[in-house]
Every structure is written in C-alpha cells, then in structure tokens.
C-alpha cells in the first residue's frame, strides 16, 4: 500500500518542525504507522521526541511513530551510486569537488530530501509520512527541485561543454567550447579546470538515471497532501503565498501558527495600568493578525486552521499533542483520509 504523505511547508521560523512533530504524533495516535522526516530540530524538541542522535535510518520514537533526519550530503552520495552507471558513480563520489558541487547545485538540498522521502514512501512500511521540508528557497524549492535538477544536468550548457554524446575526456576541448575554456583557463589555471571537467563529464553520464528518478519524485510530490504553515507576520505570509502560485498543485491546508485570541482587541479591563496597557498592545496585535488572516483567506479562498500562541514551547509528546488538539478548524481526517 502507498503511504499518505504530508508535506509541511512554509517560510523560516514559523514552527514547521514543531508542527510536523505534532501532526505526526496525532497520526500515530489514530493508529497509523507513522514516520516523521525532519531537517534541523531544535535541541529541546529533539530531546522531547528522542530525536537526538537520529540518523537517516528510521528510529522508533514513541508508540507508532518513528523518525529520521534528512541529510543532504549523505543523500547525494547515495543518489550518485544508485542512478549513475556503476563506474561513473564511484568516480563521481570520489571526485574532490563532489561534495562542494552537489551542495552548490540549485535546489540540491531539496532534491536530496525529496529523494529520501520517495525511498520511504516506496518502502511500503508506513501508513503516514510527515515531511518537515527544508527551508531553503522558502521551502518552495522542494516542489521545483526535480525539474531544476533535470535542466541542470541535461541542460544544453553541459551538453555543449562536454560534447553531445558523452565522449571521452578529450572531446571536452571541442572546438566550439574553446573560447569559454580559454577564459576559464586564464582565470582559474588549467589544473583546476581539468578536475572540474572530469566531474562535469561524469555528471552528464548520470543524467538518464537522475532524470528518470526525478520524474518518480515529481509524481510523489504531486500526490502528497500539502500543509502550509505561516504566522500572521508579513514575511512568512509572503512566503506562504508562493505555495498557491505553484503549477503542480495547491495547499490542502493552511495553518496559522502563534494566533492570539480575537477577543483581545477592544477588550476593556479595570486591571492596573501596566496590565491594561499591555492588553491594549496585544489587542492591537490580535487585530493586526486577524486582518492579515482574513486578507490571506479571501485572496486564496481558503479557510485556515489556527493554532493558539503557546505561552510555553511544547517540550514533550503530550504538550505537542495538546497543541494540535487546541487548533481551531484543523480536521486531521482531511489530511489522513
């Protein structure tokens, strides 16, 4: 059977990792064999879930829930071994530029994370997989990474540079590429250039494997449920907006995090001065939040769920679940069913 995949996306600092953990716990509580894939949990959250020292292999955390870390450097090694022709794969990973280059590819981290996710989906042992997506590129990269990876490795540029049909090394210095190589040679020195050229030629040879795989990843991404997490602050909202402008599917759920009660605005109190003044400041903030939320909802025709601002950051499975249960308008059935 296929796992239900829930992708938790959104800008930096909005609470994606905490909410991913909470959603995963809630899914496990309803009897699903659940896996949470996370990027960089805060130490306290890691301790709360027993995530410390977690590797890329799923490890049981609490009843029904396992966790694993998404590790891009490790994944690229695996990708090279799995999808490049055998001799090319080992040459690629032993190239001195391998790590630096794969870290520098546009959308490289996201592609590696999406690949890891796909492996876990295909394993068939999970009912639900919750993915805390990497924050790079505002999280949007996760969805565009397969296509970007194809256009990078299969692009005209690399083809032209390395000769059309994956030749041996000598063709690298083909005639049309010479002016470019002369520039590079003068600028970088020729030793470096040769090492880089070797690398690019090998990378081209891995194209077919990576392209095929990237299409499978795209299918999984398209079939997944998408949650966008945001706060009512301007920067996260503008990040959240981008997920509605994607071509291959729109969010299934918008979660506003750190929400203040509506009734704080305009509330009158006979409390002593510092408290009355404090209430009026938070009341103003509460109204600003409500306006931002309504603006977003009417623009994208969504009915966001809201999570109250937690005075104390959740630091164990119980408080994570309490946070999810305190949400208003959050129907887990929609995500899991």
């Amino acid at each position, binding site marked *: 059977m296929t796992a239900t995949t829930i992708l938790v996306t959104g*800008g*930096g*600092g*909005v609470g994606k990792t905490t909410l991913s953990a909470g959603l995963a716990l809630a899914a496990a509580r309803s009897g699903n064999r659940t896996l949470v894939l996370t990027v960089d949990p*805060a*130490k*306290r959250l890691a301790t709360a879930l027993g995530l410390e020292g977690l590797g890329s292999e799923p490890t049981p955390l609490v009843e029904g829930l396992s966790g694993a870390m998404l590790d891009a450097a490790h994944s690229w090694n695996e990708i090279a071994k799995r999808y490049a022709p055998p001799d090319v794969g080992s040459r690629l990973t032993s190239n001195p*530029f391998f790590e*630096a*280059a794969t870290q*520098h590819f546009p959308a490289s981290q996201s592609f590696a994370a999406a690949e890891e996710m796909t492996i876990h989906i295909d394993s068939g042992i999970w009912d639900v997989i919750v993915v805390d997506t990497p*924050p790079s590129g*505002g999280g949007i990269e996760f969805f565009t990474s397969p296509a970007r990876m194809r256009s990078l490795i299969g692009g005209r*540029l*690399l083809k*032209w*540079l390395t000769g059309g049909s994956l030749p041996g090394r000598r063709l690298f210095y083909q005639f049309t590429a010479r*002016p*470019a190589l*002369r*520039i*590079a*040679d*003068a*600028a*970088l*020195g020729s*030793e*470096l*250039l040769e090492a*880089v050229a070797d690398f*690019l030629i090998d990378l081209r040879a891995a194209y077919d494997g990576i392209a095929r795989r990237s299409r499978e990843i795209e299918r999984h991404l398209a079939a997944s449920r998408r949650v966008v997490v945001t706060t009512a602050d*301007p*920067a*996260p909202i*503008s990040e959240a907006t981008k997920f509605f402008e994607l071509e291959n599917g729109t969010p299934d759920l918008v979660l506003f995090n750190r929400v*203040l*009660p509506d*009734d*704080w605005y305009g*509330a009158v*109190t006979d*409390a*002593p001065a*510092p*408290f*009355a003044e*404090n*209430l009026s400041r*938070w*009341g103003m*903030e509460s*109204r*600003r939040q409500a*306006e*931002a939320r309504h603006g977003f909802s009417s623009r994208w025709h969504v009915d966001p769920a809201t999570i109250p*601002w937690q*005075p*104390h*950051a959740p630091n164990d499975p119980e408080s994570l679940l309490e946070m999810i249960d305190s949400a208003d308008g959050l129907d887990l059935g929609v995500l899991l069913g």
Partner: protein
Amino acid sequence: MLHKRLLIVTGKGGVGKSALVAALALRAALDGKRVLAMAMTEDSGLAVHLGMERLTYRPRPIRSGLDAMVIERPAALNEYLEVQIGIPKIAQLGPAARAFDALASTAPGIREVITIGKVLYEARKGTWDLIVADGPPTGQIVSHLKAPTTVAHLVGAGRVLDQTGWMIRLLRDQAATGLVVVTMPEELPVTETLESLDTISSDSLISIEPIVINRTLDPLEGALNRLRKGPAKQAALLHRALYEEQQRWISQLPPGPHIPYLFGLHTPPEVSARIADLWRPS
C-alpha cells in the same frame, strides 16, 4: 556601527535580517550619508522592506541619499569577468560566460567570491559612504567570508587568484568592514548564532559588530495574582511566559542592541521605518 564603510548583515531565516538592513540603510541616509543597500541573494526580502516591487543590478535611488540593488547572477558574473579578471565583453557573449559559470560553480568558493567580490568592489570604489549588504543566512555566511581564502588555496594560478588578496584585506580591515549578526531570543536562532560566531571569530575572517537581538519584549511589572480571569490576565500570562523564555536565550548571548517587539505593524516598510526611527540620534 554606521561609521564603517561596509556592513554585511546575516542571521537565520525569519529573524528580521532584511528589515534590519533596510532600517540601517534608512537611518544612515537620514543622517546625511550616501548609502547603498545591497541584496546579496536573489530571494532576499530587501526589496519589500524598502517598499519596492523589485530591485535591479544597477543601483536605483530609493530616496534621498539611499540607493538599492540586488546581485543578480549573470550580471555579477559578467562584471566580475570584465572588471576584475580583465576579460573583454566581446569574449563573454553567448555561451562562453555561462560555460565559465558552470565550471566555476563546480569548484568550491568561486560562486561565493563573485558575490562577496561585488560587495567588496563597491566598497572599494568609494562612491558610497556606507554599504549595507543583506547577506546570506547564517548557515552560508562562513563559506562566503572564507571564499577568497578558499579560492586562493584552490586556484594555483590565474587571474582569479590575483583578485583574492585585496578582498581578504578589505574583509579583515576593522576600520572599514563589519559583520552584523541579527538574531531572535529563541532556541534555534540563538544556537545557530553562537555556532557561526565561533567559527568566524576563531578564523578572524571579519570584525564582528555587537549582536542585534530582534523582537525583544519589555518586562511586565506588577502583581499578576490580583488580576481577574479574562483577556488582561491571559495577555499578561502570555507576555510573562514569552518574556522569561526570551531572557533565558538573551543571557546566552553577548550584550548587544535590542530591537523591541513592534506591536500592530502591518507592512514590511512600516517595520523598517519604525526601527530606523528608534535609532534616531537624540
């Protein structure tokens, strides 16, 4: 810190990096300096915080005394090749420059050298009294600051090497250049800040300005237990809990300027204007 010629601002995503860059640039411009605000990454929030739809590679005036630009990849590469490496424009036409880009991006440090090199180049030209750069997030700042050194070690010869010396010197010039780290009093931003500060100071890559702590709450005085149940009490409880949590993280950071939590502001330009206003000389 506005006495320097170049300030590079970094911080974890979401802590208010672009807002601070816009505010510092505004403040300096209001104080009569000629200022350039630079976005070092194309996904920077600097444009919105300056109230602009988008920025261009060519600096454009935002208001009196303040110009802004974004380092766009192809344009930055072309300028680097032409001005710093001395390769005439004609050789860059067509795929040649893009090919160089592909080759250069594969080798560690060269991509970063082009970005940081542009920032340093603007600072060296002397057109501006102050440059405020919206840098890469903390996770990538070290590789940018180290890039000229990395490249100098990697590239044994060639013109790229010749250009690294002045970059390293200008980065280390304490009188001219400073790194501003902005953070928020929460676990992840503070941890990440302390980690990157360690690396940067142990390698003495650049002089570090006092850490800016964003969105700090003032203490809320008064006895809570006399309050009746209701919004005032709820708001006070939330405020106190957040305040205590913040203090816990602030105590781990070296002392530095605080930017208070700004209540009830709607748009990014409002935020940066308010911060600039808070720093008005008295």
